[in-house]
Structure formats: structure tokens, C-alpha cells
């Protein structure tokens, strides 16, 4: 993975926080070759959005019960369209995908927050007229959907928004 210019840089702690996983898991994913190693070395090492996208994809596939071997083989493809039909659990994504007015959706490896990113393909997967959406899961059952007409806020703001949502939507009994 070549280092992009002018893109967001995440320290390992930020990456873990954005991905909703522990730093142990970040390291495990790197060791297992599920996400590429960070750029740089020592205190300067950092990750970027492509790392984050891949991390979220791996996490989601693990949550769906895929074994590491299966995830590795999926990651070698440019798209993981097949997994949408085969392994996505019923939930918000299925609900959206089954909406005939919105067309059908494909998960793209290059999407911003794939596999949580959705793309509406009104006239087929290769149509130039597609209208991409990005879906970010803040917590189980709480998602942000943003069409490509809008820019995503920078990671720090996004994180703050996620934390606000998690706090506000926290079940009553688990509030401190």
C-alpha cells in the first residue's frame, strides 16, 4: 500500500477507537495480514483511511462468523459483492437493500468505510450514474448514512458524534 498524500493520519490508538476495537486487535489484524502494516516506525507510525476501511471490513466479516481464512480470501478480491448476498445478517443493510425504490447495493472494497459503505446502483453495478452512500456504524443499531453529495466530517468530529450518539442512545439501566 503506497502512502497517500494529504490524507488523514491515524495513530494506532485513534485507529482502534474509530474501529471500535482494542489495540490488541489492531496488532492481531496486522500480524495475521488482514490489514497492512502501518507507515513509518516508532512514534511516527501511522495508519490512514484505507487501513480503517479494511479494518472495519474485517471486523464486520468476523462479526458475521467468517473464519480468518475465508476473510483472507475475500480480501484478495477487488470486490466482495458475493458476501452481501451470502453472509450479511438481516438488519438495516438488508432493509435498505430490499427497498426496490433504492435499487440494489454492492459493497466495494474501495469504499470509504467498507463494508459498512453502501452504494446505490440504480442502473447496474457498472453504471456511471450510481449514487454512493457511506454508512458508519456508531454502535449496534445506530448508524449514520451519508450520500456522496456530502463530505464526511474529519475523524475527530466523527468520533465525537459517535460518542454523543452512544451516550444519548445508551439504555437507561446501563447509564452510570
Amino acid at each position, binding site marked *: 500500500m503506497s502512502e497517500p498524500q494529504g490524507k488523514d493520519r491515524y495513530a*494506532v*490508538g485513534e485507529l482502534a477507537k474509530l474501529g471500535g*476495537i*482494542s*489495540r*490488541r*486487535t489492531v*496488532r*492481531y*489484524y496486522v*500480524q495475521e495480514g488482514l490489514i497492512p*502494516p502501518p507507515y513509518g*516506525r*516508532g*512514534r511516527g*507510525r501511522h495508519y490512514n483511511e484505507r487501513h480503517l476501511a479494511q479494518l472495519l471490513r474485517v*471486523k464486520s466479516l*468476523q*462479526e458475521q*462468523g467468517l*473464519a480468518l*481464512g475465508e476473510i483472507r480470501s475475500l480480501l484478495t478480491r477487488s470486490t466482495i459483492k458475493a458476501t452481501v448476498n451470502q453472509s450479511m445478517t438481516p438488519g438495516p443493510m438488508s432493509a435498505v437493500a430490499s427497498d426496490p425504490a433504492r435499487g440494489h447495493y454492492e459493497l466495494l472494497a474501495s469504499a470509504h468505510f467498507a463494508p459498512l459503505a453502501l452504494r446505490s446502483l440504480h442502473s447496474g453495478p457498472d453504471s456511471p450514474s450510481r449514487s454512493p452512500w457511506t454508512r458508519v456504524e456508531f454502535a449496534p443499531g445506530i448508524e449514520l448514512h451519508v450520500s456522496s453529495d456530502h463530505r464526511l466530517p474529519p475523524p475527530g468530529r466523527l468520533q465525537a458524534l459517535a460518542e454523543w450518539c452512544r451516550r444519548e442512545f445508551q439504555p437507561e*439501566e*446501563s447509564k*452510570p
Partner: protein
Amino acid sequence: MTPINPPLAPTSEESALDAREGGSPIPLESVSVECSIDGFAARTVITQCYRNAEDRPIEAVYTFPLDEGAAVCAFEAWIGERHVVGRVRDREEAFEEYDDAVAEGHGAYLLDEERADVFTASLGNVPPRAEVKLRVTTVAELSHDGDALRYVLPTTVPPRYAPVEDRGGVGRSTAETLNPPVALEVPYRLQLEVRVRGGSPLRSVESPSHPISVAIDVTEATVRLAQCDAALDRDFVLLVREAEPHRLRAHVERDDRGRCAACVELVPRLAAGEGPVEMILVVDRSGSMQGSSIAEARNAIQLCLRSLPQGSFFNVVGFGSSFEMLFPESRPYNEETLAEASRHVAVLDADLGGTEILAPLETVLKAEQHAELPRVLLVLTDGDVTNTDPVLELVRRHAGTTRVFAIGIGHGPSRHLLQGLARAGGGSAEFVAPGDRLEAPVLRQVRRALAPALTDVTVEWRGVGAQPAPWRAPALFGGEPARLYALLEGEFGVAREASVVVRARGPEGPVEYSMPLELDAVRPGSLVPTLWARARLRDLEEGSSEFHARARSQQSARRAKRVRREIVRVATEFGLASRETSFIAIEERDEPVEGEAVLRRVRVALTRGWGGIDQLRGHVQLAYDLCSTPPSVPESALKSTFYMSDDVGVHGHRERRIVPIAPTVRPLDRLVALQRVDGAWDLDFALLEVLGLPDELELVEASRALGEAAIPDALIRQAIATALALSFIETQAAEARDEWALLAAKAERWLAAHLADAVVRIRLRDAVRAVLAALSINSLAWAKT
């Protein structure tokens, strides 16, 4: 066991290759252990020597076992002449410190607790050709094993079955964490030295697990392995017997930080006795029990069934991937059900695949209790599962109605699961290494299950502020020591009255014991405060603390946070590893290592005898009992029923052979199998054959002894048979008294009930003794067969 063909010894090169990770040499070179046993506790120092034989930096990761009750209280690293000492930190913070140091090219050493009995050491950035020594120090109580103190050093992490919920999830799965890569043989070996200091002259020091050399000098002993080193493929067990068994009573220690803790040992005296119970035998029939383990379990169940008192109910449940119950629900104990159970048990095999222990326990514990009898579970298993927590939680929820006793079988049973079952279920746990006879511990467990115990135990520390651990006192059995700890508050410079008061529900109503606590005789030391902290952490980790008792279920999220905070507080304050805290040591380098360190996971030796696989000079042998169905191919079973990494080196290139083992049924076992439910024996051909009697004519004198007794003919025959069997085991199996004491008591009761006249009973016993003596069968040392 005799191999079909002469085995070939592997070359050292072959041996090393088996354990290599993708052809690279494994970095662990040796493990040496120094242990000192003093009184009721052992201090163990484990030194792991690593060497990076490669030309690039490596990260070595080694998952290894420790005694589940041990407090891990120190972690150090030597890198050449440099020495760094580990600090205890919150588990994730410790990892972050490790990760940062590794990224910066420094040396970093991390010790994580995966389970109470499984730990992982990570060595980040070991430079090319460098040597590193890691030292882990633990302190642990010794357990009681009859009249001996038992020290255990686990050396192997057997493959653990993972239910589906432990195989997935985000990050490294539980299954992967608890199942390090295995190899049939590993080149690193165990060296060991144990020093024993007794409070009185030592009567014996022996190991049922390893050949040892022992030098005893009155009250002190030094133990070494007979060969200079041993494979790390089975637990090391040492039994120490003193002339006067150690008795602790009350003991208060203050450590160098001024913390005072007390330890009190209780040995309740209870009248012997036994009553009917509902006993459910839960036996592990998973693949890992293949070979000698399931054969031992069969014998144990037969023995156990015949030791039940009349009026009992019982059932037998076998579990693997699924479970099978002998009866849909517990049945009354009678000739008919016993015969059916015997037939069922005789053909029990380890043919049920995985180790789904939760489902059968759930079914049994939720079933309605029978006839208002106390319900006891006797679980026989190697216990190698990953889902320990939900299993213990389930047993704890039913502790009010069911007591659980556990027997661990094999070279590497999960002591955490088995001891945990006993703690959660108010019972006790015993362990049987292959080669040990299973009967004695089984019958000790049956006796405990049938005997009256002190339950609902509460402890009051009078005259002193105290935080007790365990928070909920265990059930107390007659003659068996139990230890209770408390962290004491306040100053103890001046003498003042303090005592420990124990109240409990006994067989004949409430009982109360009191023991003075001598606060003016506080000794310096950190052992008792450390063991208090370990007991406190166990309460918190196993869900039996005051937090768990108070909080309602809907507050579980908040409770989990509080429990975690308390674990971190106690563990960091006392410097102990725990589920939430790890040891971290950083070696800052002036010249950081360049380049990415390559991960090297150290393979562990497959537990000896695991799943029927045995090793004999390099040959993998698959043992099975002649009586049982030959097992299906364990190689595939290994992968389907146990979680293992794809490249698991269980079978390697070695040859596998089927080696039948001749059944070794002792006359005692055959005699036991012939005993009737009511305690008597029938005078039939089978009995005569076991006793070595040519025919019934030999018994004419015995029948004359009964001539004056007004009893029916059928009973005369049973009375003679019962007296014969009793005399036989008393004279021929005196050393195995533990095994037959319950059966004999039952037989004596039968004789007393049917031959009311004591004089007649004595005449009968004298007559049958004469018959046996005449046959000179005393020379048959059959009990030792």
C-alpha cells in the same frame, strides 16, 4: 502397552523439526523450575530461556500453563547482563506500552493471563543471536490428598474444545487464544528442583507422575527429576507426607507495606454417616477421553454405582458434541436399574466428538429433583474446554439445590474448570493421573457426597475489621481442612481480643466454632497477604463476590465495570497478574532494533495420552481398549472437534499404529461388579471363580455355622457369599481399603439386618476365613494386579 513393531528413536533433528514454525528454529530452549515447599504453601520460580537463532529480530510468544490457584507475583527479564523488572498494569494499558516499545525498537516483555491456568509470555524485539531469560514467580497453597499434601506443576496446555461461540467474534478468538500451536515433541525440556521443609519429620515424598530422586534429611528433602530433564507433556505432581500432618489453625502476617492478613484453617469433626442421595454421574465421552481415560471412567462409574446406599436415585449422562442419558430422568436404585446401568456403562466409549459440557449440565440441573433427596453431580472429565465461565456460572446458579463433585482425568486436566466446578457447586475436586488407580479418589468423592457436611457456612471476624476471602465460605467436610483468609484493618501493636467465629448448618442442626486470633503475634511475611489477594481476585473473576450477590441482573453492565475496577485495584496494589492486569517490563535500548520483528509462536508439546494418542520413543500410538469399538480416525477428529490452527503438527510425518491394550481388571473390581444393590453377594459360579473356590462343597462348614439361625435357605446362601466376599477383600485388599470401605459397610449392614445374632455372624466369618485360609489364596497378591 506393547508396540506391534519395535519403535524407532527419532533423531534430535527430527524432534526439532516437528516443533519448528515454517522451518525456523523455535526460540524457547529450556524451562527450569525451582520450588520451595514450606508448610501449606509453595513458592515456584519458573525460568524460561529463549534464544533467537535467526539473523533478524523476532517476537517470541509462548502460551504456557500455571496452577490455577497460584498467585503470579513477579515477572522479570534478563537480556544478557541487563535485568528488567515487570510492573503490574491494567491489561490493555500494559499491552499499549508493549506495543509502543516494540514499534520503537526497544525490548518489551509482557505476561498476560488468558485464564486462571493459562498464561502468555510475549518477548518483543529479541535481537538476532540474543538470549533472554524470563522468570515468573508464583505462590500457591498446597491441596490435601488424603493424608498427603499435593504440589502440582502443570507443564502442558492440552487442546481445548471450543463451542461455536468461542470460535468467532472480533479479534483473536477465545479458541485461538487458549489453543497454542502444538507438536508431538518439542526440543525444549523441563528441569526441576523442589526443596521441602516440613514442620515434622517427613514420612514420604513421592511423585505419581515422574520418576524422581529424593534426598530426605529428617524434616527436609530435595527432589530432582530422576533423569536430568523431562518432556513438558504432563503435570508434575509431588505428594508430601509428614509424621504429624501439618495443621495451621490461625496465622497472621504483615507484609513490608504494612498490610495484615490472616489465614485460618478449619478441620471440622463430623460423625460419619451416609444417607440416600440423587446421584447423577456426568461422564465426558469426547474424543480427548479416548484411550485409558474412558476405560478408567468406566471402572469408576461401576464402582460408584455399587457404593450408593439403598433408597437413592441415580442416572448416568455421557456428553460430547451431544449428550446421552441412561434414563430420561433419575430412577430408583434397585437390582433392575443397576443391571441396566452396568450394561450401559460397560460399553461407554469416547465416541461423542466435541466437549459440549454446558448443555448436559443445564438439562440435569434444571430437571426436577427427586423424592426430596439431596442432589449431587459427579463429573468425570479432562475438562479441556474454553467456555469455563458460563459453565461455572450455571453451576453457581444451582448451588442451592445441587452439589457438584469433580474428578479430573488425564495428564493435563483443566484444574481451573474442575476446581471451579467444586467451588461453585459446594463440592470438591480430585485429580487422577494416568497410572494412578481411579478408585480411591472416586470413592473419596462418593463418601463426601454421601456424608453429612457443614453447609451455609458463615464466618465472623470478631474484634477486628476484616475483608474476608473467599467471600462465600465453602462447604466443609468432616476431617478435611479448609482455609479462609481475611485482610485485617487497623493497628495491631497492642494485644486485643479477636477471634474467628464460624457458623454453619450441620447434619444435626446449627453448629458454631470459635478460634482465637492472636493479633499481638503477627509475623512478618507476604505469603498470607498475597494468598488473600489471590482468593479475593478469584471471587471477583468467578462471580462470587459481594458485587455479584447484591446487584440485580439488569444492572449487570454497571456491575461488570465495578468488578473490573476492583480487580485492577487489588491486583495492582498487591502486584499480581489477573484477568484484567498484566505484567510489563521494558528494556530501553540506546540502539533500537532495526526492522520488523518476525512473529514466532512457540509450539507446545501435545499432552501425553491426549485423545488416546501416546508417544513411545517417537512413535505415535493410538491406544484403545480391546472391548471398545476402535476409534474413528482421530486425526480428522482433532480438527473437527477441537479448535486447532490449520498447520497443527499433531501427527507430523510419524507413523501411527493401533496398539491394543489388554484389559487389566483386578479381582477386586470383578468382586465389586458382582455386589448386589442391597450390599449382599449371590453364591454363584461367578463369585466362586473370583474367589478361586473349586465348588460349593468347601462351604459346608460355613453353612453349619448358620444352622441355628432361623433364616430362609436363599438368604443362607447370600449370607455365606457376603461373608466370603468381605473376608476376601479384608485380607487380600487391605491396602485398597479406601476403595472398598463403602461397599464393605453396606455388606456389613446387610449381614446385621439378616443375621440379628452377633454370635452367629462371628461364627460365619470365622468359618469362611478358615475356608479361604485352607485354599491358601492369601498368597495371591491380587489387589495389586
